[in-house]
């Protein structure tokens, strides 16, 4: 399942997509949990009884601000969450 967390507002579309099929049985030992400086990810048991990562609810409403520091303007060349997720489950829409 592709789970899109985020929103669209007047300034743009801000979604973090998590491909739960790649996230189940994570080969990166849940590196996203520690890679995100804001610790926005957590592991939940979804409706299909799979243990997967999701974006914490309060962060879903403030993604453009929360992720701002990790974007190229913040001095990063690649996003820490995407770099840490070696199975390639995490994507940003912006």
């Amino acid at each position, binding site marked *: *399942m592709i789970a*899109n967390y985020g929103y669209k507002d007047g300034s743009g579309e801000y979604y973090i997509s998590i491909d739960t099929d790649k996230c189940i049985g994570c080969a990166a030992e849940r590196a996203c949990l520690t890679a995100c400086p804001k610790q926005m990810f957590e592991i939940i048991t979804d409706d299909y009884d799979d243990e997967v990562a999701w974006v914490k609810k309060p962060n879903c409403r403030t993604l453009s601000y929360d992720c701002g520091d990790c974007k190229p303007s913040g001095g990063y060349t690649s996003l820490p969450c995407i770099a840490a997720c070696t199975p390639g489950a995490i994507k940003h829409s912006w």
Partner: protein
Amino acid sequence: MITAGIDMGSRSIKVVLLEELNVDGAPQLKYGVKKVHIMMPGDLDQDVAADKAYDEALASAGLKREDVKSVFATGAGRKQVSFAAEGITEMTAGSKGAIFMYPQARTVVDVGAEEGRGMKTDAVGRAIDFAGNEKCAAGAGSFAEAMSRALQMTLKEFGEASLKSDKSIPMNAQCTVFAESEVVSLIHSATPKNDIAKAVLDAVASRVCAMVRRVGIEGEVVLIGGMVHNAGFVQSLKVAMGVDTISLPDMPEYISALGCAMIAAERQH
């Protein structure tokens, strides 16, 4: 076996009591809806409201709590249903219920009072892709309701008025508060009410469509949630999504509660 699905929406609580049937030679008749019940909670305490809605549903079906094998809850307030065995997301419940009603559908659009979301599902109603809008209600029913109030119309009149317009007036505001002032400006510039109603519903449809396009439009499309009752919105959504038909269930607000009750029944096996 009877199971219950409770959809704790932000505006209303929907309860579906589902009975598992065993009709020989007709495997498609696996479930029968025993009773549906909707309650607008007058109480801010959601625990109390959930109890009350469930008891009302049971009473109208002539059942007692012990007659129900399992209760599952969904919706924004699902965690407040203390007597539910499990809480499931709106995406899972909505997909399940919609595919039960329309087995050919693969795209489910759910527009309720405070949230809208798009789901892509497989043949058994399992959500395989979803997107919502976590931030604001501009793509949902309460936005349309606020705008109908600004035009001093009922929601029904608002939807019908929209169908009488053939103008496309873009609404730029993304937020209910700013959109209301945009509507007031249109009223002051003597724009006909029908055109304003269409502009508002086009704007809601365009926001909902943006979410659905994230997951992709595939196969037949089903619309569930209270906004199905707004004919103007349905027309605007068809145009925004570029589809000729959208399947509309008779009782669209109960579909998520139905899916929830079905999952409760399946988990008993």
